[in-house]
């Protein structure tokens, strides 16, 4: 049993194998409350698997994954669902329901868990988060008509609509052009400042990571090879960290969310 901690997410010696392939090999990590933690690493190092452990979609072979003090592997389903109501997640492709409109997608968690809200209140809240992700007035837009960047924003709006304490991002920049990718990073940075909640970002985009993260954890071969603040990790002498950061170490200009935002089309 892990020691009590303020960290909303705590991983203690987590091991996971798929057949003969070891995906996580003794990962221990505390995600600090109210800050943004980026989990980086090359493709296939277990980043997404780690994220799925946090939300309880995958159970570890050994070790403990604790979210808000609940062990996600051993807790009864009702407790796991209670934890999930306190978090939001942006999936790689948004995981939006194509048969719903944009607004209905965002409204979905409210309809499921906030029966006390009237239709007008739900609509107002959806319009509010649509404005937060810079897509005002898109409530009625059919989901298939959204671009890749818009899908990410709508997925993000759905993740934050219930006012979660923890938001997880699975590769928020994947499949986006550099400009849209920068705009998404800027949006994450802006939400981090305005919402003040805990963010966990899974990515292999180191430039974007430095823009938004307070802490960086690097996974390699299923192991946590680096952990610390952005400055500590980017200046790490660990050979794998140096090799991964490599050509990405031409650091971007100081972050200015306003300049990274794309004008509306």
């Amino acid at each position, binding site marked *: 049993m892990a020691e009590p901690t303020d960290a909303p997410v705590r991983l203690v010696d987590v091991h996971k194998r798929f057949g003969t392939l070891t995906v996580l090999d003794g990962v221990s990590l505390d995600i600090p409350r109210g800050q943004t933690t980026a989990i980086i690493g090359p493709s296939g190092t277990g980043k997404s698997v780690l994220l799925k452990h946090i939300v309880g979609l995958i159970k570890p072979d050994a070790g403990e994954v604790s979210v808000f003090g609940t062990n996600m592997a051993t807790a009864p389903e009702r407790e796991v669902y209670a934890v999930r109501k306190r978090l939001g*997640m942006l999936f790689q*492709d948004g995981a939006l329901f194509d048969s719903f409109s944009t607004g209905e997608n965002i409204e979905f968690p409210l309809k499921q868990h906030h029966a006390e809200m009237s239709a007008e209140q739900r609509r107002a809240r959806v319009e509010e988060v649509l404005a937060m992700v810079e897509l005002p007035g898109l409530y009625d837009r059919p989901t298939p008509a959204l671009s890749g960047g818009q899908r990410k924003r709508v997925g993000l709006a759905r993740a934050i609509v219930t006012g979660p304490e923890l938001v997880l991002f699975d590769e928020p920049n994947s499949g986006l052009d550099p400009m849209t990718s920068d705009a998404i990073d800027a949006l994450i940075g802006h939400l981090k400042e305005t919402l003040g909640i805990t963010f966990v970002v899974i990515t292999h985009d180191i430039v974007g990571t430095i823009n938004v993260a307070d802490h960086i954890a690097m996974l390699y071969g299923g192991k946590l090879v680096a952990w610390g603040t952005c400055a500590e990790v980017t200046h790490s002498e660990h050979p794998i960290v140096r090799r991964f950061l490599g050509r990405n170490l031409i650091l971007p200009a100081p972050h200015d969310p306003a300049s990274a935002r794309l004008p509306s089309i």
Partner: protein
Amino acid sequence: MSALAWVGGLAYFAWDWFKVAVTRRPPAGQTLVEAYRIGVQSLPVLLTISVFVGTNLALQGYNAFVPLGGQRLVGMFVAMAGVRELAPLIAAAMIAAKAGTEMASQIAVMRTREQIDALEVMAVNPYWYLVTPRLYAILAVMPALSLIAVFVTVCASYCVAVYQLGLNGPTFLEYARTSTHLRDILTGELKALVFAVIICFVSCYCGFRSEKGPEGVGKATNQAVVLSCILCVSFNYLVSQVLYG
């Protein structure tokens, strides 16, 4: 061995659904949408197939009875074969082909696009949200579809028997009526309910356990229709054996 594991997995899936379904009301709006999709949208194909099953029954019955001088019995033959066996089974096969494949492919695509994971993360049980409305909808519409299939089959047989083969209409109807008992109709309805449960659970299960990607979706869809039909035909024999054997 793998077939046994598959059946075990299906039973476990049904049990998992049952545990969550008894604790929550079904999503009403979704159930109506599914009922429309399964019931109304499957109707054209069901009517078409039922018409041609009826025409063939009359034709083959006539050809079989003419050498024996018993063409009057075509009405009885149509009633027994159509009402008791063929119409409910054809209705089930059509629903498996139309609605069952839709269920399997929709769920498989949702799995591929991480939408089922998204439901889980949003603290919505995917079995409750995806299986419950489909099951309640198919249970509501399947008996009606089976009755419609019976009616259309007999009507189509009547048309061929009377207008093409020149049989006496009142005689056809009298033989059909006296050979059809309330029990036969109720048996057809019971079969329809059993088929509904089979088609829904098999199709949803194939969707949920599909591999990710287009190939996985294709396999799941294919498995859903093939296994639903095999299980429906097997259970049809079982029910007939118990009730008529």
